[in-house]
C-alpha cells in the first residue's frame, strides 16, 4: 500500500468504526444495493460456471483418452502375448517373431479378437472426431467464462472504490454537521470553511462513482442472458454430439457376432460371472487355491490336533519342519523333499506333519530317517537316511527329542529328522 493509500485508510478508519458501531449515520442507496445483490449473484454464478466448465472439459477429454487407451490395451491383451516385443511391419500388421518354440499358446478366438480390434478403432475414431470440438468448448465456453470472471473482478474493484468514497463522503458530512451545530470560534470558522470544501469534493467523487455504477451495472446485468446463450448452446450441442457419436460407435460395435445383444449388460454378465471366476480356480499357484496347510503350532488357525486315525496316504505336508538349531545348518538339510510343494489331497486329518509322502506307513513304533544324523552329544542316536528306527518314546511335538533304538543302540534324536 502506498503512503497515500495508507493515510487515506487511517483517515477513514474512525468513520468506519463509528458507522459500523452505529454512532454515525451511513448513507444508504437502496437502488445501488439492489444492483449490488444481483451483481454478487452473477459473480458467484460466473465463478462456478468457469470452474465447472474447466472441469467438464478436462473430464471429457480424459474420458475419451482413457476409453481409447483401454481399447488399445485390450487389443494388446487379446493379441498373442509373446516374450519378445512385437515389431510392426509396413502394413501395420503386427508380426511377433516366434522362436522355434514348439509350445502352442491358445489362440484368441477370431470373433473376440475382431471385436477388440473394432472396439479399438471405434474408440480411436470417436476420439478423433470429438477432439476438434473439445477445442471449441475451450474457445466458446471455458475461455469466455474466464474472461467474464476477469471483468467482474474489475467491477468489484470499482465497487470497493465506491465504498471508500462513500466513507469519505459520510466522514466529511459528519464533520460539517458537527461544526455547524456548535458555537463557532474563529478557528472553528476556518475549519468549517475547509470542511465544507472537502465535503464538496467528497460529494462530487462519490456521486460520480455511484452514478456510474448505477448506470452501468444494469447494462452489465442485462448482458448476462446474451452471454450465457451462446455458451449454453455450445455446451448443449457439443454434448449432443458426443453422445451421438459414442452411441453410434457402440451400436455399430454391438452388431458384432461376439456380442449377444438380446440381454442387457448386467444380465448378460450375471450368466457368465461364475464361469469367469471358475477360470481362476484352476491356477494351483494362487494362495487361495492352495489347500490349507496343516500347522504344527497349536496357536495357528490351521492346527489340527493329532488323532490316531491316520490315513497312510494323506500325510504329506509342504511345510517341512526346519531342522532344529542344534545341527550344523548344512543347507541340504533344509530343503524340501516332497515331489510337489502343494498337496493334492484334501484330507486334513494327519498324525504328524511329515516332510515327504511315503509309499507305506511304517509300523506304528518305527520311523524312517529322512536325513543323516550324527550324534552330537553323549546319548544321541546316530543314523543314516532311510534307516528304520524303533521309537521308544515319542512326544506330540516333532521338534522335540525322541528316544529310539537302532542296531541295538538306544539314544535320543530330533523328531523332525524322521518320518
Amino acid at each position, binding site marked *: 500500500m502506498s503512503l497515500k493509500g495508507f493515510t487515506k485508510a487511517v483517515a477513514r478508519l474512525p468513520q468506519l468504526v463509528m458507522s459500523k458501531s452505529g454512532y454515525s449515520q451511513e448513507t444508504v442507496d437502496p437502488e445501488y444495493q439492489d444492483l449490488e445483490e444481483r451483481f454478487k*449473484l452473477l459473480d458467484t454464478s460466473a465463478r*462456478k*460456471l468457469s470452474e465447472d*466448465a474447466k472441469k*467438464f472439459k*478436462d*473430464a*471429457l477429454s*480424459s*474420458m475419451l483418452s*482413457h*476409453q481409447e487407451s*483401454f481399447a488399445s*490395451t*485390450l487389443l494388446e491383451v*487379446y493379441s498373442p*502375448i509373446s*516374450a*519378445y516385443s512385437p515389431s510392426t511391419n509396413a502394413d501395420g500388421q503386427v508380426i511377433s517373431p516366434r*522362436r522355434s518354440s514348439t509350445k502352442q499358446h*491358445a489362440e*484368441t*478366438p477370431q470373433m473376440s479378437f475382431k471385436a*477388440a480390434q473394432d472396439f479399438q478403432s471405434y474408440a480411436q475414431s470417436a476420439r478423433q472426431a470429438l477432439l476438434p470440438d473439445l477445442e471449441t468448448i475451450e474457445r466458446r465456453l471455458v475461455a469466455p467464462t474466464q474472461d467474464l470472471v476477469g*471483468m467482474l473482478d*474489475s467491477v468489484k474493484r*470499482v465497487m470497493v472504490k465506491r465504498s471508500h468514497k462513500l466513507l469519505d463522503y459520510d466522514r466529511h458530512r459528519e464533520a460539517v454537521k458537527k461544526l455547524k451545530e456548535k458555537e463557532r470560534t474563529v478557528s472553528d470558522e476556518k475549519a468549517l470553511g475547509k470542511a465544507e470544501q472537502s465535503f464538496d469534493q467528497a460529494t462530487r467523487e462519490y456521486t460520480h462513482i455511484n452514478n456510474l455504477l448505477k448506470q*452501468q451495472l444494469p447494462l452489465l446485468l442485462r448482458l448476462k*442472458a446474451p452471454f*450465457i*446463450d*451462446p455458451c*449454453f*448452446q*455450445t*455446451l*448443449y450441442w*457439443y454434448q449432443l454430439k458426443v453422445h451421438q457419436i459414442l452411441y453410434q460407435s*457402440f451400436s455399430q*460395435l*454391438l452388431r458384432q457376432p461376439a456380442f449377444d445383444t438380446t440381454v*442387457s*449388460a*448386467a444380465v*448378460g*454378465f450375471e450368466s457368465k460371472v461364475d*464361469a*469367469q471366476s471358475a477360470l481362476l480356480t484352476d*491356477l494351483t*499357484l*494362487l*494362495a487361495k487355491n492352495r489347500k490349507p496347510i496343516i500347522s504344527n503350532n497349536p496357536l495357528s488357525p490351521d492346527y489340527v490336533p493329532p488323532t490316531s486315525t491316520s490315513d497312510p496316504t494323506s500325510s504329506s505336508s509342504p511345510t517341512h519342519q526346519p531342522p532344529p538349531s542344534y545341527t550344523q*545348518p*548344512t*543347507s*541340504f538339510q533344509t*530343503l*524340501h*523333499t516332497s*515331489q510337489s510343494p502343494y498337496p493334492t489331497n484334501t484330507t486334513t486329518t494327519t498324525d504328524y506333519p511329515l516332510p515327504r509322502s511315503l509309499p507305506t506307513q511304517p509300523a506304528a513304533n518305527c520311523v524312517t530317517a529322512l536325513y543323516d544324523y550324527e550324534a552330537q552329544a553323549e546319548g544321541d542316536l546316530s543314523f543314516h537316511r532311510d534307516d528304520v528306527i524303533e521309537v521308544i518314546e515319542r512326544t506330540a511335538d516333532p521338534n522335540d527329542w525322541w528316544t529310539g533304538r537302532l542296531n541295538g543302540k538306544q539314544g535320543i534324536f530330533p523328531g523332525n529328522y524322521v518320518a
Partner: protein
Amino acid sequence: MSWKGFTKAVNRAATGVMQSIGTMEKTVDKDFDEEEKRFKTFEQKIEKLHRDAKGYLDSVRAMTVAQQRMAETVDHFYDEGGPLGYAGLQYKQAVEKLDEECRNELDTNCRVTVLEPLGKLIQAFPDFNEAIKKRQKKLLDYDQLLSKSRKLADKPSNDPQAYPQALAATNQAKEVYDSINNQLVAEIPKLIDLRVPYLDPSFEALVKSQLAFNEGAFHKLKDIERAFEKAGASNGGEGLDGQVEGVLQQMRELSICGSS
C-alpha cells in the same frame, strides 16, 4: 529375518556374485525365461487395463457432476429471463437424470463387470511373482550345491562321506528347484491363455453399458432439442462463433469493466 534366513540370503548373494563374475556355472532355462517375460508383459497390460477402466469411470462421473453443476448455474443466469430460459430448465432436468443414471447404472455395472474381475485377476499376480522369486532362490541353492559337488568329484576330499552327501544334497536341491520351475512353466501359460475367455464377459458388458449410457444420454438430450429450436436457437451450434466475443466486447466497453 531369522538367523537361518540370513545365512541363506548371504549364501545366495555369494552364489549370485560368483555367477555374475563367471566363477560358477549358472543354470539357464529358456522356456522359463520366455514364460517369465510373457508373464511380466501380461501383468503390465492387465494393470494398465485396470487403471484405464478406473480412469474412464472416474472421468465419466466427473463429467456428469460438472454438467449438472453447470446446468444449475446456467439456470441462475436465466433468472431474469431470456429466450433460452425454458431450454435451460429442461436441460437441467435432463442432466440431473443423466447423472443419476450414470451413478446407478454405468457406475455399478462397470464396477461389477469390469473393475472387480480385473481386480481379481490382478490379485493373482503377487502369488506368481512370489513363486518366481522363490524359484530364483532355489535355483541359486541348486547351482551352489552343484558346483560344490562337482568340485568334490574333481578333488575327492579325505572324508569318504563328503561326495555322496554333496551329491544327495544336489539332487534334493534339484528336485525342489525342478518342482517349482516346472510348476511355473506350466502355470504361466495357463494364466495367460485364460485371459481372453476371462476378459470376454467383462468386455462385452463394458461395451453394452457404455452403449446404454450413451444411448440414454443421447435421447435425453435429443428430446429437449425442440426447446432450443422454439427459442430460435441456431441449429447444431452453427453460427455461434463470435457471439460470445461480441457480448464480451460490449461488456468490456463499460467503463466499470475497464481495466482501469
